[in-house]
């Protein structure tokens, strides 16, 4: 991991809990990840793992009954000014206003819900520009047209006055990306931006995000459940399960040599990995409810390497560091490492 630049975003022990009638749901329970500057960090997991809640927490978009109850979200601006702890800002703080959409912006899964149906595309992009930058309306429009061209929309001069319903799904997502990047944010959070798109359109959008990221130097947090997308677009990855990170590292390391049993069995169960007709090695059981998280390691009831007495007692296992900045939350890993003579 490149240590020369400080990470653009550091989430330390973030806890976001939902206080519902069923009790306290720990949707995000002690998540620590960091986003290196200029790189793409993928947060991957299945439904209920907390990846979306993490991304919404970064921009403080969590509403009642949810609440950030602990941890820090440290954003390090590029210009060297002191890091901002987003988790500790109050709702009416000016700094929070500058962070949202200015320093850090976000794109969502459903482009049709993210765009207002009663405003033109240009209107919405210019709104973003005028909020965060001190320019005239004419200049804002010029920048909007330029951005639409950058995201690959042909005929941007004409499209800028169209309404979202006049555009196709892929084009709407491009507009959303344009809106997010027009203010040149330092960090882009992408919450499953291609899940609702066809696979050929998804390929186009992924390429677009990758190209823009390289050109603008934006650091990206990419939320997804598709490990193939992670492999193609991310530099680093954090795998989440039931509100906690179970494995972290570079994409090559985690996908080619997974250490946590969840990551390993997930990769093995993918149909693309097996041969035709072979029985897929599925993970037994199903994801438990967040209201009833198993004792000890939350994955233990489904774990192929479950060790009675070790995995089901005490609290969830802590993240253990392996070489090269890799971290795994599994007691078996440490044991393995020690068995190999302490050489990770």
């Amino acid at each position, binding site marked *: 991991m490149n240590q020369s630049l400080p990470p653009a975003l550091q989430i330390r022990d973030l806890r976001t809990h*939902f206080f*519902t*009638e*069923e009790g306290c*749901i720990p*949707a995000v329970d002690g998540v620590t990840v960091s986003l290196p500057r200029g790189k793409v960090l993928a947060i991957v997991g299945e*439904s*209920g793992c*907390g990846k*979306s*809640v993490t991304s*919404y927490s970064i921009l403080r*978009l*969590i*509403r*009642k*009954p*949810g609440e950030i109850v602990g941890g820090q979200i440290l954003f390090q601006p590029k210009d060297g000014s002191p890091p901002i702890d987003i988790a500790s800002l109050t709702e009416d703080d000016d700094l929070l206003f500058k962070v949202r959409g200015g320093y850090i912006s976000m794109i*969502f*899964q*459903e482009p049709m*819900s993210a765009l207002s149906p009663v405003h033109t595309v240009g209107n919405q992009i210019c709104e973003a520009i005028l909020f965060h930058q001190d320019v005239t309306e004419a200049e804002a429009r010029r920048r909007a047209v330029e951005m639409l061209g950058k995201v690959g929309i042909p005929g941007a001069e004409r499209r800028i006055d169209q309404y979202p319903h006049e555009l196709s799904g892929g084009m709407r997502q491009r507009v959303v990306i344009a809106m997010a990047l027009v203010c040149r944010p330092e960090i882009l959070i992408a*919450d*499953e931006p291609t*899940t609702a798109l066809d696979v050929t359109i998804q390929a186009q959008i992924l390429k677009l995000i990758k190209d823009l990221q390289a050109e603008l130097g934006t650091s990206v947090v990419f939320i997804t*459940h598709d490990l193939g997308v992670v492999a193609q677009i991310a530099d680093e990855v954090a795998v989440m399960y039931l509100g906690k990170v179970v494995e972290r590292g570079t994409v090559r390391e985690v996908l080619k040599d997974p250490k946590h049993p969840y990551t390993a069995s997930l990769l093995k169960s993918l149909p693309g990995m097996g041969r035709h007709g072979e029985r897929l090695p599925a993970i037994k059981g199903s*994801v438990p*409810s*967040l*209201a*009833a998280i198993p004792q000890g390691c939350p994955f233990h009831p489904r774990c192929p390497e479950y060790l009675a007495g070790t995995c089901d007692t005490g609290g969830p296992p802590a993240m253990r560091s392996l070489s090269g900045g890799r971290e795994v939350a599994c007691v078996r890993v440490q044991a393995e490492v020690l068995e190999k003579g302490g050489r990770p």
Partner: protein
Amino acid sequence: MSTDVGAPAAAAIPSRTGDARSNATLTQWQLIRLRFARHKLAVISFYLLILLYACAVFAEFVAPYDRGLADVNKIYCPPQPPAYSFRDGWHVKDLERQIDPVTLKNYYIETDKVVHLGFLVKGEPYRFWGLIPAEYRLFGVRDRGPEAGRFHFLGADKYGRDVYSRLMFGARISLSIGLVAIVVTFVLGSVIGGISGYVGGAVDTLIQRVIEIVNSFPQLPLWLAFAAVLPPDWSALKSYFAITIVLSLLGWTGLARVVRGKILSLREEDYAVAARLLGASHSRIIFRHLLPGFTSHIIVSLSLSVPGMILGETALSFLGLGLRPPVVSWGVMLQDCLNMDVVANYPWLLMPVLLIVLTVLGFNFFGDGMRDAADPYSAK
């Protein structure tokens, strides 16, 4: 997958109320009841309505006097709030009628005669709904004999008839007309709306245009027109049902639209398509799969229509075009209040207004509570 950040993805939380185990076997109605119970105002309204309808059903028991029992000595008697003393228990002082020689107004002075009251007293014999003979009443005058006084809790009207008793008997008519009218509305609305939504196409378009035409008529004038057409010599029962038909003739359109909309949306749900693919007949699809999906909406729509019906009947009777004396309904009682003089001098004759307001508010709050509680399966 849910993108709602109000709560984590639905897959992680299998239940909405209670824990997963306990409400896995709850039916739709039990879930609705649980949610309804959380709206205090709706629950209070529900019990209030139960109370009012109980009074209507058991009017003979609850009222100390028969509805038509007149007493010349108690014309326009003011309300008599009961007092309690150790010596006499619950009692009121008897009132004697005087006439002011100058204005010729009635007024009453208290005498020393004590009229004893009690609960569960033996009153005039009566028959429940004209059928079952009984004697006891909820409360009334305990003294027996021809010298016993009268007790008018809420005063008396221009013939000396007890207002409170007439309110109870009037409830029977006013409250039941609402219910009977919505039965007709329900049948008309769901059949027509159901056909419109399920069959679709030209039939749907035609029915919708008819609904729009019906809706564009102004409601009260049309009711008045229909009511004026009714022959005045019809028996009380006949005109009662005629009024209910008149009221529901205009009221079914709201329900028809609700039913049509729901059927249109539910018809393409996967489980309805699955039922078609299983070979289910149209009636099975409608009654087993589609209809349960919006029974609660029908209840809401109906309970919010009842106040309209009650007010309609009241308005018609008040204007003399609905039910006529000797039938008692709250609207008929309000006919006495047409004269400003009467209202100014004898304001207790406006009591029906209070009960009407309570009833209408009660149905509205109940309907609101039901609407919020309905369809517990709506969110994923």
